[in-house]
């Protein structure tokens, strides 16, 4: 289980996270939702250690992660995979090399074993016959899927996804959501997804945390979110015209 306790983070004078505490459920798809600029990405990057927090604790099982040194963090990081907002594939490497990179760096597998694992991961995310392509030759959806394949190549315990649907059309976005949910169940991972997409919330949200201006305002599941009495959350959930109409019609 991943737990964050009373974390605070500021950039210069601007407070971005204000006393945020939350537990993420193991083996489930946990969602951090909120408006753009609400502090979701900073929270996710703090959880994975890309941002140092000013105060507070980040626990992975029984390990206080944010107090570990670089070398000690490395051991836990081998159990993490992350999908970045812009995919963050290495431009100079092909699809195959991108997925193989963590295996080259951290395992002693033979070239054949690595190739087998790379092909398994790519097939699992439905990337076929693209091993030799470079990221610049891929569509946005394909890049995300390759990035997911890279993230799962070391068979991680934790998967983190920062805005997995940004820049994708609705159908591709649903495919990515479904893929994340399937992989979470298949590999029993604890997944944390940052999103402001309500489709994702309703598709895959098993535990949902709502952040507003750096403060955790609400947490619950997708069934509870529609009947919440949190006004700021309701403004966010029913932001578009269709959702407003559905709410007003009582459906």
């Amino acid at each position: 289980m991943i737990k964050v306790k009373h974390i605070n983070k500021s950039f210069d004078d601007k407070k971005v996270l204000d006393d945020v505490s939350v537990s993420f459920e193991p083996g489930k798809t946990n969602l951090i939702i909120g408006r753009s600029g609400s502090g979701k990405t900073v929270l996710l990057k703090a959880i994975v250690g890309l941002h140092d927090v000013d105060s507070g604790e980040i626990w992975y099982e029984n390990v206080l992660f944010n107090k570990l040194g670089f070398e000690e963090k490395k051991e836990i990081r081998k159990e993490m995979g992350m999908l970045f907002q812009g995919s963050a594939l290495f431009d100079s490497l092909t699809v195959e090399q991108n997925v193989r990179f963590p295996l080259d760096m951290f395992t002693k597998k033979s070239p054949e074993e690595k190739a087998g694992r790379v092909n398994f991961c790519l097939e699992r995310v439905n990337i076929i016959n693209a091993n030799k392509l470079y990221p610049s030759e891929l569509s946005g959806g394909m890049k995300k899927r390759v990035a997911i394949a890279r993230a799962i190549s070391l068979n991680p315990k934790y998967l983190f996804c920062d805005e997995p649907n940004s820049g994708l059309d609705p159908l591709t976005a649903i495919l990515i959501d479904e893929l994340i949910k399937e992989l979470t169940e298949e590999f029993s991972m604890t997944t944390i997804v940052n999103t402001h997409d309500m489709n994702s919330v309703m598709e895959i949200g098993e535990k949902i945390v709502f952040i507003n201006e750096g403060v955790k305002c609400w947490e619950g599941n997708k069934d509870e979110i529609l009947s919440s009495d949190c006004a700021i959350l309701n403004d966010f959930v029913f932001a578009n015209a269709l959702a407003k109409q559905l709410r007003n019609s009582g459906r």
Partner: protein
Amino acid sequence: MIKFLSQLGRYFILLKKVFSRPEKASVYYKQTMHELVYLGINSIGIVAIISFFMGAVITLQTAYNTENPIYPTYLIGLGTRDSILLEFSSTIVALILAGKVGSNIASEIGTMRVTEQIDALEMMGVNSASYLILPKMIATLVFNPFLTLISINVGILGGWIAGTTAGVVTSEDFIYGIQYAFIPYYITYSMIKTLFFAFIITSVSAFHGYYVNGGSLEVGRASTKAVVHSSVLILLFNVILTQLLLS
């Protein structure tokens, strides 16, 4: 002043990260080989072209400025050799490489920063500073002395061709001149300067790229800063090293 000291501190912190133990030697070796080609071999063309023409101009300038019967014409060869050996092939070539290689390093690493590729490396537990910068540093430290040697030879060749073609010096006099009063230490001096300059180009450019914050505009700015700061430092260290090595 505080900003300068803070930047200097960040530079040395980055260097400490760069020189920490690599995760996997085989991956670093491959990366270094790639950088040798990318930063070293790919620079041979520009270094050769510039050296050839600079050698030619140095010869012609020396000839036209020493047009006096009391000066033997073989001094044109000697002047060309020493100008190329002492300053041109180490310092001027380093300034050219600061433009070509330095901007390349800063923009490559800067783009990786703004597109979260460096975050992706850190996230995996890779020491991104070491993985990205150390192979470039090794590649330039190993290959730039060869570039300097190529520059010396091509520069002198350019001088010989220009001088004999223009008729300002005979082939025999030029060849006699380039051998006259030759001091082998000048090559060592040139190599030492080249190594210092290679380190400056790589580390300063990588520093500017690594700490880019923002988008493509900032990457462009970092690239410009990398070239300007590397060039100024090369000129400064040229003075210091000349005083230390030749005094």
